[in-house]
């Protein structure tokens, strides 16, 4: 039991170390300083050591038959570990330090969700006692981690390749405003109208449920969070306007419109950040509230916010750091290299999953949502690999496909559990 407590402490420290490393790498984006980036890498390595120790302790505590990746909590920890290890390997081998700013926030998000959902060791149900499954989950976490790194390189490629910042602004503002609406609908409002009418829908249902005192198993009721709803609404309006402004600017060049879009984007990012901060603050401060956030929703929200700020950063600091990115060829190659590691592993993941399904349920493939999503991910990367053979589709279009692949990975990993139900419901157990 004490081993588990040590492990939980270690993971908390690891998360803070990764946070510090993230700050180092992001600082490096804005200002070239070898000392800072060295500190980032050193912190990363220290974090990985503690992280590895934590995983080892957990395994020791659970026994050899019960490896530490049997539920979503453990799998997220392993995913975070995979991202950092794979990234540090790429950094040391190819000497591309700047990518840390893109990769570490994702690892940090995985760790953050995991650490806020610490979970003791549970006895393994029969259905999960299979080495096929253990191989399946380990390779899944590593493959996903490598896909995340590939995504970072492709994103850097697009930035370096001088894709206009208005394009980034347009894409991100459309995705973020649609994403917020989706979360909103998911959170409870069934009609758009109620979204505009009801204050603080933002809290809703599955986001920050409050445990009714004295209930076991816990029952939840909803708590309204002031200002969050209107702030989200403001964000959606600002970003939708920004998208239109960017759209018009792309059709007919106008310096004024471009600047206006930048301002709208900045404002939207500020309101979104405020909404998230208020929600987290209230969720934390309310009496009897145990913070219980659906990992996918939080990740999605975090990404939406992060991508907004990313575009804002690109707007005002873009010129400086674009110059410091490695050459396009290198970024393209590194993206490809990462997929080259991830794709074979993803193949193993699907095959071992099929073998496991055959032994557990008597069918190797049943078009279960998780199976389908992983197949879709595999096909997206197959498309990426084929595109690299076609002249003219090799660079920008394939980088875009790589980014779509990343979205597909996140959907497969976390989204399916939230939006669709299926046999992988074990993964839901938080």
């Amino acid at each position: 039991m004490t081993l588990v407590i040590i492990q939980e402490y270690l993971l908390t420290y690891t998360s803070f170390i990764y946070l510090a490393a993230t700050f180092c790498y992001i600082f490096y984006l804005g200002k070239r300083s070898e000392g800072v980036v060295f500190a980032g890498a050193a912190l990363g390595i220290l974090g990985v050591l503690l992280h590895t120790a934590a995983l080892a302790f957990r395994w020791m505590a659970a026994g050899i038959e019960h490896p530490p990746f049997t539920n979503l909590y453990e799998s997220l920890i392993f995913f975070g570990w995979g991202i950092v290890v794979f990234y540090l390997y790429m950094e040391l081998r190819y000497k591309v330090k700047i990518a840390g700013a893109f990769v570490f926030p994702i690892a940090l998000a995985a760790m953050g969700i995991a650490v806020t959902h610490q979970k003791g060791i549970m006895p393994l149900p029969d259905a999960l006692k299979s080495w096929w499954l253990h191989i399946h989950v380990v390779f899944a976490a590593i493959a996903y981690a490598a896909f995340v790194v590939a995504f970072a390189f492709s994103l850097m490629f697009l930035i370096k390749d001088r894709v206009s910042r208005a394009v980034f602004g347009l894409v991100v503002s459309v995705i973020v405003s649609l994403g917020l609406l989706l979360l909103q609908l998911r959170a409870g409002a069934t009609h758009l109208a109620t979204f505009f009418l009801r204050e603080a829908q933002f809290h809703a249902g599955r986001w920050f449920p409050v445990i009714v005192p004295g209930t076991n198993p816990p029952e939840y009721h909803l708590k309204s969070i002031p200002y969050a709803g209107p702030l989200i609404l403001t964000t959606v309006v600002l970003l939708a306007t920004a998208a239109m402004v960017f759209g018009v600017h792309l059709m007919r060049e106008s310096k004024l419109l471009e600047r206006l879009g930048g301002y709208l984007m900045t404002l939207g990012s500020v309101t979104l950040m405020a909404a998230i901060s208020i929600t987290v603050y209230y969720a934390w401060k309310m009496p009897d509230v145990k913070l219980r956030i659906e990992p996918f929703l939080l990740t999605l929200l975090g990404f939406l916010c992060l991508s907004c700020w990313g575009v804002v950063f690109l707007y005002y600091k873009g010129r400086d750091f674009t110059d410091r990115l490695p050459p396009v060829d290198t970024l393209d190659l590194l993206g490809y290299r990462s997929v080259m590691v991830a794709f074979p592993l993803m193949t193993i993941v699907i095959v071992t999953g099929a073998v496991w399904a055959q032994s557990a349920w008597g069918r190797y493939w049943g078009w279960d949502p998780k199976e389908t999503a992983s197949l879709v991910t595999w096909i997206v990367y197959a498309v990426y690999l084929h595109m690299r053979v076609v002249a003219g589709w090799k660079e920008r279009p394939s980088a875009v496909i790589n980014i779509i692949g990343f979205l597909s990975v996140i959907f497969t990993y976390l989204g399916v559990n939230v939006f669709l139900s299926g046999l992988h419901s074990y993964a839901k157990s938080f």
Partner: protein
Amino acid sequence: MNDPERKINRQNGAETETKDAGAGIVDAIWNLLASTRFAVILLAFIALTALVGAFLPQQPSQQLLRELASRWGEGRVAILNALDFFDLYHSRWFQGSLAVLCISIFICTFDRLPKTMRLIRKRDAVLAGGDPERMRIHHGFDLTCKVDKTTDAVRNWIKKRSLSSKEETRGENRWFFINRGARSRLAVYVVHASIITVIIGALIGNIAGFRGRLPLLEGQTEDTFFRWGKFGGWAPLGFQIRCEAFSFSIDPETGMAGNYESDLVILNSGKVVDTIKLRVNHPYYYQGIGFYQSSYDLFVDKTGEVGIESAVVTVLSPDGAELGALTLPEDGSAIEVPGGGLMRIIRAQVNDNTKTITAVTVEIDTGESGKSVMNLRPGQKAVPTAISYAVEVVARKYQDDVEVARISLSAGEEKEIQQGITVKLAAYFPTFPVHGKEESAARIFVTADEEKRQHMLFESFPDFDKMNPQGNLYFSIGKVTQSGDSTKYDGPSYMLEKTDGLYWTILDVNRDPGVPVVYTGCALLIIGVFSSFFLSHRKVWIKVSPGRVSMGAAVNRNRATFEKQFQRWASELERLLSTESREDNDR
């Protein structure tokens, strides 16, 4: 996959073809199916449709379809249904696109394999350009040694490194050609072949296999199973299977059912062939048919009665001492209790998540102090209240709520309310749990036109039974009158010691002769993907000319890794040769 040589061949091929009109169309289709662009678009299409299928309910029940129709609109659901969106993965057009994928892979192979074979077979020791040092990966150094001597040294080095090589003399130059991993160029074809293998395996399973389900009640013997799909229905197994017992455990932390297993007996023409414990994840095969522990359910009869296999009750004296244990008959008949009186099971209360019996509701008739109903739970003492209730049941017309009859019943009593319609009060519950609140509720059986049905009535919701009218009548509770005095009772109290429900074990029954083929495909897929990423075709030319050794190399993938290896070889060779030539000169 990232092979520029092939790409160029492909483009040249496309330009030189298409001459006359008739063959033009065939060629155009051929070229389309063989092109990587088409493969990319086709794959994207398959991915997109597969994703749509994950969001829509697949093979929904008629009820769900109706629900969707009311939510999305009749027309939309009808269109989606007509396009097979609700059974997307079995739809003609989805399977058709998989077929097109297979054809495309075939054509692509026909188109490119000969060129790849030519590349593999091409083993000219003499480089076409004549100078290895003009290649992208190269190395060269001067030597004062004689050509023959150097050639021997190079040959020895190649032998020592256990590399195989081809040798040729051209003029006064001696050429060596090291060709490694040429067959790795076939890996892509292995991947493509593996995908076709998997699809063929799936097809075999679809045609020659079947899937089904077999629910077995504890103690039941069955020789048929329910087959899913187009040829669905009850089908013979060819042997018998009996479920002796079913057991499961509940995870205390999650409250969900953890491990479960069935004790099964396989019988062939009446003789026991095998006895097995079937567990989740541990399938059992007999005569090519696989049995998988899928799920389980409590037995519930037509009137909604939950099957109880056993219920043992502890009897406690008023001062808490244990007086003994009673086993209640599961069929609901009454037995005598130590304090005097009769006890019988009315119903079981069930946790719907775990399908376990949480409490048993019993009726106790103590004679002088009347009948009372109580819930027995493990670890909780229940005292008969010695209060009996008379419940007024009101029958109303469904259409206009006009009262038809009003009768007073005590528990177990049955009365006729109209010609051919009788009402029986099965039980009255003063504190029936509903959504965390306790309600006054009654369960009645109504027999009308030979049909006996259960109705649940709640005093505070007189309209509740309107959802479940029988004939044109629905029922409600009018008035409840109490009689008896709870303080008078001084008999024993009762506690549930243990209870067990009667369970169905639900087995999946499958036969899939395509599995070995699919597994072969999977193995090929992994081998193919790994070799196409991590193996490469590496070619090294070494030209020994008077006074200089030139080396050049080409590789089709993973250049950085190979370049390092090449540089290692080159410097090793240089060191070796220069030492030898120095020794030569010293002599």
